[in-house]
């Protein structure tokens, strides 16, 4: 009788969904997907979304990134009124865009604007993987291009935080051409002798990795960020062998000479400020 009270009467096994696994318990508490430890969300946010026990870097929204990197009150957004089109008439494409606009509060997968880092004026672009996996179509390419142009025009450093699955399939060749467009703009910025810093965050792959993300005067990345050209699954199918666990991580890239440094999130702003300061030319 009493035993019955404690007996498990569950008829069905509950299989938590991926989302539940990651975010349970929602709201007040957050579970780290890496070490599975549970911390208060407040605690996590205070640590700039870095797990307090294992240092796992959670994904950040563009707004959170701006708060972390840009001096308070200095960010001035540009081109937030640009709108996505549907050049290949893919059904549902614009509906999905609208959904992500509502979800993220952004007009597209990148936010661009002017701001300061410890008093150093820069032009800033930050991609957000919560919006269509940060994929690059016409608007993302154009916003980044205009940001680079603004930096060239005002003779300012350009800093981008990348997070992208690559080119956006739904815009076809136009997406591929954004790689060329951002490159011609970067070339002008480069010819003007100006500073470009690329910070790769999780994930930076495909056409974004194979264009502006990889050609900073300084290439930084966040710990453990996935960075690479081709997808892991495609490579495994091609070479028919298992890949090392750290394959295409920031640390893997560092080891193979593709990065200047892997920078912990809590040191990111200071690191950028350090580079910006050195580029001011020192004291008289």
């Amino acid at each position, binding site marked *: 009788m009493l035993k019955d009270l404690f007996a498990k009467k569950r008829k069905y096994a509950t299989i938590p969904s991926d989302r539940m696994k990651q975010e349970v318990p929602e709201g007040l508490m957050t579970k780290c997907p890496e070490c599975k430890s549970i911390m208060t969300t407040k605690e996590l946010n205070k640590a700039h979304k870095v797990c307090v026990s294992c240092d796992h870097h959670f994904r950040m929204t563009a707004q959170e990134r701006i708060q972390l990197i840009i001096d308070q009150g200095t960010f001035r957004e540009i081109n937030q009124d640009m709108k996505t089109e549907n050049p290949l008439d893919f059904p549902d494409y614009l509906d999905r865009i609208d959904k992500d606009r509502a979800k993220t509060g952004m007009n597209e997968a990148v936010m661009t604007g002017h701001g300061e880092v410890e008093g150093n004026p820069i032009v800033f672009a930050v991609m957000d993987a919560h919006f269509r996996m940060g994929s690059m179509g016409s608007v993302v390419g154009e916003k980044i291009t205009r940001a680079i142009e603004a930096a060239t025009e005002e003779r300012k450093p350009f800093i981008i935080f990348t997070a992208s699955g690559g080119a956006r399939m739904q815009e076809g060749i136009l997406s591929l*051409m954004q790689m060329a467009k951002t490159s011609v703009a970067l070339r002008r910025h480069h010819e003007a002798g100006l500073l470009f810093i690329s910070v790769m965050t999780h994930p930076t792959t495909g056409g974004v990795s194979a264009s502006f993300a990889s050609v900073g005067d300084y290439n930084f990345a966040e710990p453990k960020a996935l960075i690479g050209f081709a997808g892991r699954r495609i490579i495994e199918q091609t070479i028919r062998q298992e890949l090392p666990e750290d394959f295409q991580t920031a640390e893997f890239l560092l080891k193979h000479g593709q990065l200047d440094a892997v920078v912990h999130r809590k040191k990111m702003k200071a690191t950028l400020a350090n580079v910006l300061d050195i580029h001011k030319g020192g004291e008289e």
Partner: protein
Amino acid sequence: MVGELEFERPAKELRDKIAELKSFMDEKGIDLSDEVERLEERLAKVEKEVYGKMTPWDRVQVARHPERPTTLDYISMLFTDFLELHGDRLYGDDEAIVGGIAKFHGKPVTVIGHQRGKDTKENLRRNFGMPHPEGYRKALRLMKQAEKFNRPVVCLLDTKGAYPGMSAEERGQSEAIARNLVEMAGLTVPLVCIIIGEGASGGALAIGVGNHVHMLENSWYSVISPEGAAALLWKDSGQAKRAADTMKITAPDLNEMGIIDKMIPEVEGGAHRDVKKQAEYIEEALQKSLDELSEMSEEELVAHRYEKYKKIGQYTFENDSIGVK
């Protein structure tokens, strides 16, 4: 002729029949020339019909035809005094990209192209025309060399994509492609790019940021292969045909969209049916491009490339119904 394609079958059947009749005539000494003539007329009509309404997927098949002429085939017909140059001076020589110096109508040029094989053995050597980073870095080395000696660069694009492998990632496939894009943007000599077969994604674009970009009529150029697009969009690579229809990857489509400068016509049925004639069509387009671009100063060439790519994209603004294209 080997490698007849599915959509060509009506033409193939007639061609076979004509050949059969002709050999019968020779063998038996019977005059059937009236019949042959009649069939040949019909063949001309059927060919016009078959090749006149090719679907995007038909064109993809022609672009992949095992006998389709490759970069080296065209180099031997378009240029004289070609000398192949090897290696990136950093790691190795990637045979999926060939390049060298040559003369075009008597004037020095640098020519670079993706190179696939025509049989299994050659394909293994050339990695099926899928370059590693050292291939792109070789291409860049040759472009910078051309810039130093002030000669135009001609790039022939024909790849299923940059190689997706562990070695390529270790050596910086992304950086190699990205670097080429930025360097081509600033190149102070004329750069003419011609897509001669398959043009898949960043692996093609990595030698494709030209002042002029032309495409052979039956080549394709896309952000991803039709199979890859189908796998990503509908989780089914079997729907490649549908992807080819939807993605606007053919020369006529991209010409209409203003992505390419010129569609170079192909010999009826595809370049492989008359390589010499095809080379003449390319030669004509190339001569025109080089004439036009040779008028420009270094600054003008760089600015021309800037304006060309700056324009590409489709978007609108809030409270603004006019699209920008």
